[in-house]
């Protein structure tokens, strides 16, 4: 060793330095190869059942108890949950589609109503054969789940998902703001006029730093609940035939059996309907008179904080808000929930979510076992221990779930379906993303200007929707 014998550090030549750098690069590449090649993604490269959900790593970890229970039941099936962070469902579906394009799709995906028909049309495998085979096991699930939720996952006569959780657009109200304005709890059948009067009373009681009605510009909870209440929508809603096999098997004695179909269809735009104009004009009036805000773009992430700090009087939301308000410091009596106001009808809007088996799934039988297990009461109690959403099972929407958190009238959540069986899903055809863009981009303009601007915005929406539906039909 020259350096040691001479007592001097051996001179590092440029060649040695470059060699070391090269070796370092090669070493780093080898060490990070699993990440570079994506082989560290759960479920990839082995025969595990890979399940994609929208959420964080913490959400994935929260499912671990359910996975453990499933593994005890099916030790031969390995399950790995991959949580994909996304701003909204549209963003999540985009990421799933890129995984499909990359040739690494998950086997099972948790899909909300927004993407149910996109998946049913292009990506998902129907559950019909499994439901027929395991009808005896599944009877208890369907007896506990409202048929409206199931129908939302029917597409052209086949069922593609089992609803796990759901939320209707109910009306949350701040009890303090109501009391300050001298308002009582709204009647179950309050009308859009009553609602406007309530907003006016709140505005009078709190003229500044307060918004009587706050709403967001999106498919769920935006303008659509108002359109439904006025017995219309921005897309023409029809139903497809088929599906009798399911209704006759599981809902033969349900009073709403005759309302059920092979699934919803939204094939044509309807923004030129006079009732659509009337509905938008009503909202425009709220904005103009300072009773409601121009709808905020995005997912309304700031809403919980604003509502919890008593700066919002009312806003449409589902049971998913309860835990958030509780964590934001609201006591169970600080707020409450009511049905959405009545207009020509009192049809509500809802969204639901459940697992879909991908056409490309390695082991569809194993995927079905996971779905069947997830639909069990045991699994759903493990997955939804808190009111972060409304469980699809009626029996789970109970006093225990809302105890200490509120709202006092939590029964409103499931009663929305039971009392108003025509309550319908988010209008989401396979072209949902384009349809949502067409809706959102025109809503703000429609409610922010004069009557002329409203007409122009609705004409523009009609054109955009025609294009959106034509493009991928």
């Amino acid at each position, binding site marked *: 060793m020259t350096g040691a014998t001479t007592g001097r550090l051996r001179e590092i030549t440029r060649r040695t330095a470059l060699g070391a750098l090269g070796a370092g690069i090669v070493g780093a590449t080898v060490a990070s190869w699993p990440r570079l090649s994506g082989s560290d993604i759960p479920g990839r490269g082995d025969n595990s059942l890979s399940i994609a959900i929208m959420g964080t790593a913490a959400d994935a970890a929260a499912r671990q108890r359910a996975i453990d229970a499933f593994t005890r039941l099916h030790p031969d099936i390995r399950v790995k949950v991959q949580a994909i962070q996304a701003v909204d469902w*549209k963003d999540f579906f*985009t990421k799933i*589609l*890129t995984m*499909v*394009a990359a040739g690494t799709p998950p086997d099972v995906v948790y899909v909300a109503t927004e993407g149910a028909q996109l998946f049913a049309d*292009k*990506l998902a495998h129907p559950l019909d054969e499994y439901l027929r085979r395991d009808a005896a096991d599944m009877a208890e699930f369907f007896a506990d789940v409202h048929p409206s939720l199931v129908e939302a996952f029917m597409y052209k006569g086949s069922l593609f998902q089992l609803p796990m959780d759901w939320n209707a657009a109910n009306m949350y109200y701040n009890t303090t703001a109501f009391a300050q304005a001298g308002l009582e709890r709204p009647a179950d059948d309050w009308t859009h006029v009553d609602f406007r009067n309530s907003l006016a009373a709140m505005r009078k009681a709190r003229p500044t*730093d307060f*918004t009587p009605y*706050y709403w967001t*510009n999106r498919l769920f909870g935006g303008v659509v609940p108002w359109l439904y209440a006025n017995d219309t929508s921005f897309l023409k809603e029809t139903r497809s035939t088929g599906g009798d096999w399911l209704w006759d098997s599981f809902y033969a004695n349900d009073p709403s059996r005759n309302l059920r179909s092979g699934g919803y269809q939204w094939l044509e735009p309807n923004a030129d309907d006079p009732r659509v104009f009337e509905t938008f004009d009503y909202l425009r009036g709220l904005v103009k008179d300072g009773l409601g*805000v*121009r*709808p*905020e*773009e*995005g997912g309304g992430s*700031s809403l919980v904080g*604003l509502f919890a700090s008593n*700066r919002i009087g009312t806003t449409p939301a589902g049971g998913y808000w309860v835990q958030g308000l509780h964590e934001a410091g609201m006591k169970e009596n600080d707020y409450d929930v009511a049905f959405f106001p009545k207009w020509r009808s009192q049809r509500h809007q809802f969204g639901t979510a459940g697992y879909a088996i991908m056409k490309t799934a390695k082991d569809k039988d194993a995927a079905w076992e996971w779905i069947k297990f997830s639909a069990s009461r045991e699994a759903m109690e493990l997955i939804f221990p808190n009111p972060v959403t409304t469980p699809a099972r009626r029996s789970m929407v109970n006093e225990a779930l809302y105890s200490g958190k509120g709202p006092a009238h939590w029964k409103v959540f499931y009663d929305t379906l039971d009392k108003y069986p025509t309550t319908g899903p988010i209008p989401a055809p396979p*072209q949902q*993303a*384009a349809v949502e*863009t067409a809706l*959102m*981009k*025109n809503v*703000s*303009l429609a409610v*922010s200007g004069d009557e002329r601007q409203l007409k122009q*915005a609705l004409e*523009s929406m009609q*054109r*955009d929707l025609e*294009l*959106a539906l034509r*493009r*991928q039909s």
Partner: protein
Amino acid sequence: MSTTIPRRERPKQPAKAAKPGTPATSQTAYGRHSQRWLAWIFLAPTILGMGLFTLVPIAASVVLAFFRWDIISAPTFVGFDNFAEVVQDPTVRVSFLNTIAFVIVAVALQLGLALALAVMVQEKMPAWLRTFFRSAFFFPLILSAASVSIFMRYLFNEQFGVVNWFLSLAGIPAVPWLTTPGGSAAVVILVYVWQNFGFSFLLFIGGLASIPVETYEAAALDGATGWRKHVYVTLPLLSPTTLLASVMAIISALQVFDQTYVLTRGGPGDSTRTAVMVIFESAFQRLEFGEASAIGVILTLIIMAITAAQFRLSKRFVFYQ
């Protein structure tokens, strides 16, 4: 007294390749050969990177523009249909017009602000304050545009935003920043310029530092002071920097996306929808990858044309010392 530093003579290159058996030195053909290989080895990562992540995607995008493809089904050749649809699509047309308007206003503001501040900082500030402002103005550039935009959404919220709260202190009624076409366009431009002017600012600082003091002294002797000094000395001598800054600012502004997507989602209506946003929506939301590629190709051609025009015009307006 002048000192002449003896220049190291370059070794003369042999006219012909050395005969076999000649010792391999850097002056031999073998040496040149090995140096060439070494050069290729060093260049390889960049060439590979450029090829794989720039040239191949560009080529793929051009090819894809002639197909209809939704990721899931097999691509179908449609010739120029995608281009025809894109040209007829009012949303695409509006988005390109928005982009051009955005480029004109945002780049003018960005360069104007950067130049004004650079002159001020370079001339009027003590060294320590100059260092501070260099960092402070550059700082927004290192922040994620998406995070900044989320933050700005809160600031500019009509009901509860800090900006309107400040305005209310002066008795100004709440401004619907993000929910009216004019307001949202103003906020997008403001946020974009605030975040990006730091880069142009640094370029101008560098450019100003390279102007010889003697030139200013000579101009002062000729009576050019104050404003005239800047008009007749600073601006002309800064023109190469201005060209570089403007080329980079225009290319960057033509590709604006994060701010519009996060702040306004392109709305209200199409008022802040930009070309790149339409590409994103076509590809990843509507699954029209062919159409998205066609829009991308058109945008690339526009960027190339504008850049070429800038360099062509620069012959008239750019002065090198």
